[in-house]
């Protein structure tokens, strides 16, 4: 499950679509049952997508914005051995990963 409100997802088994609550530009987005399909849908890896715009601002770099979203951390879960509960594992950003490697050296 993605954490970014701009990212929607498709259930790989049922094909059910979970729409995001914001478009790529950050505008609120809500799709009701009878609404027409969004005009523009940018695909992301792993069955995720972003609602795009027909008109982007002149200075808006769509590809850069999508590239940034492709690097979005995902919510990871793991079982805490001490309690047996499933907990959310904080995502490791690329910068934090670099720091971890430096410290290990």
């Amino acid at each position: 499950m993605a954490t970014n409100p701009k990212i929607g997802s498709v259930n790989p088994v049922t094909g059910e679509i979970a729409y995001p609550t914001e478009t790529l530009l950050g505008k609120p987005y809500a799709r009701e049952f009878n609404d027409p399909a969004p005009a523009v849908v940018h695909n992301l890896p792993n069955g995720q997508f972003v609602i795009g715009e027909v008109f982007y601002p002149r200075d808006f770099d769509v590809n850069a914005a999508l590239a940034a979203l492709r690097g979005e951390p995902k919510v990871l879960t793991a079982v805490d051995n001490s309690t047996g509960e499933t907990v959310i594992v904080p995502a490791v950003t690329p910068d934090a990963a670099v720091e971890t490697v430096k410290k290990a050296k």
Partner: protein
Amino acid sequence: MTSNLHTGAYVLQVALLNDNNYPMGQLVTPNSPVNGTSYNPLVVPSLVGFEAADDTSEEASSFGGQKKRGTRDLGVSELGDITITVSEFDDVFDALVLGYTVDTATAANLRMTSRNVNRTRPRKLLLGFTAAATPVNSTPNFATIFMWGTLRRTALGSNQGTGRNPNNRVYTLKKFVSTRTPFGQLFSAAGVNPDGDSDDEYVITASAPMSLSTYVDDGSTTSLVMPYAPDSTEHAGATNLFFKNGTVNHTGVSGISSATATITAGSAADIWNTLVPSSAILDVI
């Protein structure tokens, strides 16, 4: 059933064409898509009618010796205009087909439009109009009729009319012939085999309206989301059409789940056109 009664006006889909006559959904810069993106046509919800005028045809005949001799049909010189009637003023549809922008940026609580009456390069459009198609056994089928052209409309006005549809908006479709079918295949390779490898009309009769969409490949993503879920998950070419760069590509689709097709990624900028019977498009209001 080969003979169907066409009635009603259910769905109108509108897509812009790029310079190669591929439909590119509502992308207003159809020659500059973003890879990895689905572009969906606009569904016009307030459709009232889609009516054709007669073509102008040329002919020559011989009258000699005071007798009627041979007559030759010399072809169609003008395609008849199509009159599209909608019951409401839809500014998104209006802006898309007339080539202006609905301005909600200048004032967020206002919607501002113009008519772009001086435009010199009208947008090239693919329109898909769906009517009921009823055969002798009354099976509730649909015929989706695709045409290519540019649109104009009359200036806005209003009146004191009451009752049903007191102020319809009328658009005129100036048709042209296309070298590609609605799913991107060249007419020169199409099974319908028209003379001149181009045509102005393409009709698909099916159990539901044919829902059109375009996906521009990014070379890596292995799924594409269609705007409306197809009624069938069939993907071998019997019901749902998948074409890539104008060539049939059913082998590139390994499954359909709801509105999502699992595909074999092609190359970046490949253009996928999908055309599937979808009852879900009838739910749009």
